C-alpha cells in the first residue's frame, strides 16, 4: 500500500520520443487504469516504474522514497513492485507452485504463502503442473499470484486480459480486481480497452502524446473530458457546433446545460459533446420543427441498441434502451437532455 508519484518523466528511444514530461500521482490503495492507444507508451511507463528501464529525465517516487532520479537509482529487485505482463511470462522450467514461490524467502515458502495465494486465485490443486499445461486464463492467474506472493507495495499489470477471449476476460477481470482490492494493493494497470478501464478503476489516466492528458475518476472523465481527444477516447462522442453563454449551450439539438466548472465565464462559439445516451428518438408526430434526422444504420445488442442517424451534414450516434424505436430509413425526431461538456471552438 503505497503511493506512486511520477514527475516530469521523459523517455525517447533513439530519436523517437515516447514519453514527454509526464506527471502522475497514484494514491495509496487505489486501482488506477492508464488508458491509451497502442504505441502510446503505456508499457514504457510501467517498465519505468518497475525499474526495468530508466527515464531520460524526471523522478519516480514510491511511498515518498525516490527510486529513480538523476542522483539515485533503486534496482527492480529492491523496489518491491510486482509486475504482471501481457503474456504472463511464467517460468517454463518451474512448476506452478515453484513459480508462485519464486519471490519468497525460505521462511515464507515454509509458511505456505504460495499455497495461500494459489487458493486465492482459485488454482489450489494445480501446484504440481507446469505452465504449458495450463490454459491462458489460468496462466494469468498464476502470474498474478506470483506477483502478489512477496507482498509488493505496488502491483503493475500490463494489459493483463487482452490475450484472453472475451467471455473469460470479463469474469477473470472481476475476480482479479476483487482480489487486488481485498489485498489493498496499489494497482496500476494499462489497457487500450476503455470499457475495462472505466468499469474497474478508481482513477483513470488518459495517455496521449507521451503525457497524461487527464487523470480523474471514471465518471468525471466520461462526463467532463478536458478536450475532444479525451472525450472520443473514453466513449462514443457526438460533437456538435454550438454557442455557449452563461452556462448554457445552444446547439442544433436544442439548449443544453453546460456541466459545471467547465468554461465558467466563457461566451462564444464552442464544440459541444453530446453522449449517445443523452439523445432520445421518437417517431415524428405530424410535422414539427423539432430537430429531425433519418436512421441510417442500426445495431441491436439485446439490452440496448445503437442507431446511426443522419442529421443535417453530420451523423449522430444514438443509444436507445431496449428495442429500436425506428427502422433504417425512417425519419425520427431527436432531442437531447442532461449536462454537456464543451470546449472553445475557433471562431
Amino acid at each position: 500500500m503505497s503511493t506512486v508519484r511520477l514527475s516530469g518523466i521523459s523517455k525517447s528511444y533513439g530519436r523517437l520520443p515516447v514519453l514527454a514530461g509526464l506527471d502522475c500521482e497514484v494514491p495509496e490503495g487505489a486501482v488506477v487504469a492508464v488508458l491509451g492507444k497502442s504505441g502510446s507508451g503505456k508499457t514504457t511507463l510501467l517498465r519505468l516504474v518497475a525499474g526495468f528501464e530508466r527515464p531520460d529525465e524526471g523522478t519516480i517516487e514510491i511511498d515518498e522514497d525516490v527510486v529513480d532520479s538523476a542522483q539515485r537509482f533503486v534496482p527492480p529487485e529492491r523496489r518491491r513492485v510486482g509486475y504482471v505482463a501481457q503474456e504472463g511470462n511464467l517460468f517454463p522450467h518451474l512448476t506452478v507452485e515453484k513459480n508462485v514461490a519464486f519471490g519468497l524467502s525460505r521462511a515464507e515458502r515454509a509458511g505456505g504463502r504460495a499455497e495461500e495465494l494459489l487458493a486465492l486465485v482459485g488454482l489450489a490443486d494445480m501446484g504440481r503442473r507446469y505452465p504449458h499445461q495450463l490454459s491462458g486464463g489460468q496462466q494469468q492467474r498464476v502470474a498474478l499470484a506470483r506477483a502478489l506472493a512477496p507482498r509488493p507495495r505496488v502491483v503493475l499489470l500490463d494489459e493483463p486480459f487482452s490475450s484472453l477471449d472475451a467471455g473469460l476476460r470479463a469474469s477473470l477481470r472481476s475476480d482479479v480486481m476483487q482480489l487486488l482490492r481485498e489485498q489493498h494493493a496499489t494497482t496500476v494497470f494499462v489497457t487500450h480497452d476503455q470499457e475495462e478501464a472505466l468499469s474497474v478503476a478508481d482513477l483513470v489516466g488518459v495517455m496521449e502524446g507521451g503525457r497524461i492528458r487527464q487523470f480523474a475518476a471514471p465518471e468525471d472523465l466520461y462526463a467532463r473530458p478536458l478536450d475532444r481527444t479525451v472525450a472520443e477516447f473514453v466513449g462514443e462522442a457526438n460533437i456538435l457546433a454550438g454557442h455557449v453563454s452563461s452556462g448554457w449551450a445552444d446547439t442544433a439539438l436544442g439548449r443544453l446545460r453546460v456541466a459545471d466548472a467547465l468554461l465558467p465565464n466563457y461566451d462564444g462559439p464552442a464544440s459541444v459533446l453530446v453522449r449517445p445516451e443523452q439523445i432520445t428518438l421518437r417517431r415524428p408526430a405530424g410535422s414539427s420543427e423539432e430537430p429531425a434526422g433519418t436512421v441510417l444504420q442500426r445495431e441491436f445488442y439485446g439490452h440496448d441498441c445503437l442507431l446511426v442517424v443522419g442529421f443535417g451534414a453530420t451523423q449522430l450516434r444514438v443509444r436507445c434502451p431496449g428495442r429500436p424505436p425506428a427502422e433504417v430509413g425512417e425519419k425520427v425526431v431527436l432531442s437531447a437532455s442532461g449536462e454537456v461538456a464543451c470546449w472553445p471552438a475557433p471562431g
Partner: protein
Amino acid sequence: MTKLLWGRRRPPLGLAATSVLVVALLVSPLALIVAQAAQGGWAKLWAALDRAFVASLLWNTVRLALAVTALAAALGTSMAWLTERTALPGRRAWAALLVVPIVVPDFVLAWTWSSMFPSVHGYWGSVLVMTLHLYPLVYLPMAAAFRASDPGQEEIARALGLTRWQAWLRVSVRQARSTLLGGSLLVCLALLGYYGAFEDLRYQTFTTAIFGEIQTQFSPQVASSLSLVLVGLSVLVLASEAAFSERGVLRRSGPMAQRAQSPAALGRARLPAVCSVAAVVAPAVGFPVFVVVYWLFAGGSSALPAAVSLGAAAGYTALYSALGAAVATVLALPVSLLATRHPSRWSLTLQRSTFAVQAVPGIVIALALVYAASHFIAFAYQSPELLVAAYAVMFFPLGLVAMTASVARASPRLEEVGRSLGKGPVTVRLQVTLPLVAPGLAAAFCFVFLSAATELTATLLLVPTGVQTLATQFWAYAEEGASFGAAAPYAATMMLMSVVPAYLLGRFFDRSLAAEKAGGAQVLGALT
C-alpha cells in the same frame, strides 16, 4: 504481437564487444589464406588457377553437388513425410534409424562400400555414398517442420477445394520451403568440404587436389589458391541461400493450438511404403554397421604398426573433441545472445558472417592455422591447442544453431520478472536463464563433439607429433595400409563414441519442439 521494445535498446557494450571479437577470430582464417595464396603475386595465383585441371575439378565438384543435393533433399523430404505425416507402421523406430547415418563419418562410409564393392568409385559411387551420408541433414529439419506445422491451414486449403495431396504440397511443403533450403544448404556445404570419402572413392575434387598439391609441390601457394576457389564456391552457395530463402520462421498461429494432426492412412500403399523406408535404412545404416562388424571379425592384424593404441587414440579423440566443443559453446553464447536479444541488421550480419565459416572447408582452416602458427604464434605450432582451436572454429556455426532455440526461449522478459520478484541479477541468471539455456548449451556441445570426433581432414594437418586420433589412425590403416581388419576397430570406436551425443541431440530437438507445441509461437528457424 509483443512489441519488441527491448530490441530497440542498444546492446550492452561487453556483449557486443565479445561477439565482434569472436566473429573476427572466426573469419581470420580466410584472411590468412588470401595472404598465403597471394605470396607469389597475383599473376602467379591466376596462372595456377587458369588450367584445364582446375576446370575439371570445378566441373566434378559442381555436378556432384547438384546431384547429391537434389537427391538428398528428395530423400530427406519423402522420408520425413512418411514418418511424420502418414500412418507408417513402426514410425518411431524408423525415425530413429533414419537419423543414424549422422554417426557414421563420410570416410568410414566410403570405406565400407569400396572395401566390399571395389566397383563403387568415381562419380556414381560418390553420388551414392554422399546421398546416403547426407540425407539426414535434410530429414531432421523437415521432420521437425512437418511435426510442428499447423493442420488448420491445410484444412482451410481443403475447404477451398484442394485435394489432400495438393493441400499438403501447396501449403505445408511450401511453408517448409525455407527449412528445405536450409537443409539443402547444409548438404551442399558439407559436400564441398569432405576429403576422405572422395580420396577413397577416387573422385577428384578440390579437397583431394589440395592434398595432392601439398604432397607434390614444395610451396603452399597452389594449395591455398585452390582453397580460395573452394571458399568462393561455398560463399556462392551461402549467398544463393540467403537470396532465395525467406529466413522463414515456422509458427503455430494461436496460442494454444495443441491439436495433433491425423496421419494420412496408407491402406494398400502400406507395404510399398515400408519397403521404401527399409530400402533407405538398409544401405545407409545396416550396410556400414554390417561391414564394420564383418571386418572386426574377419580381418585380423596388419603389418602396419599403430602409432598409438586404440585406447590412447580414443582418449585423445575424446579429449580434443570435448575441449573443442567446450570452446565453441562458450564462444557461441555471446553471439547467440546478441542475435536473439538485440536483433538488428548489424547483429544479424554478425551472426550470418559466422556461417561464412561454415563455408570454409576444414582443410582450408587447418592450412590457415598452420600458416598463422608457423609465422605468428610460434608457441602454438604443432600444439594440441591449435587442433582444439581448429575444431572450435570449424564447428562454431553448428553450436550456434543448436543453442539458438533455447537462448530465444530464455527471454530477458523472464529475467525482468525475476528481478521484480526480488532476486538480484546474478541470482536471476542462475535460477531462470541458465536452466532454460542449459539444454541448448548441451545440444551445442554434443553437436560440436560429434563433428570433431569424426573429423579427418584438419586433424591430419594439425595433429601434434606423436598423437593420433581415431580418425587419423583409421585413415592410416584403411588408406595407407589397405588393412581393413585393422581399421575396423577404429571405425567401430568412432561410431560408438558418436552414439551418445547423437542421441542426446535428437532428444533435445524432440523435447524443445514438444515445449514449443504447447508453449505457443516460438522460433523454429534454428535449423535454417
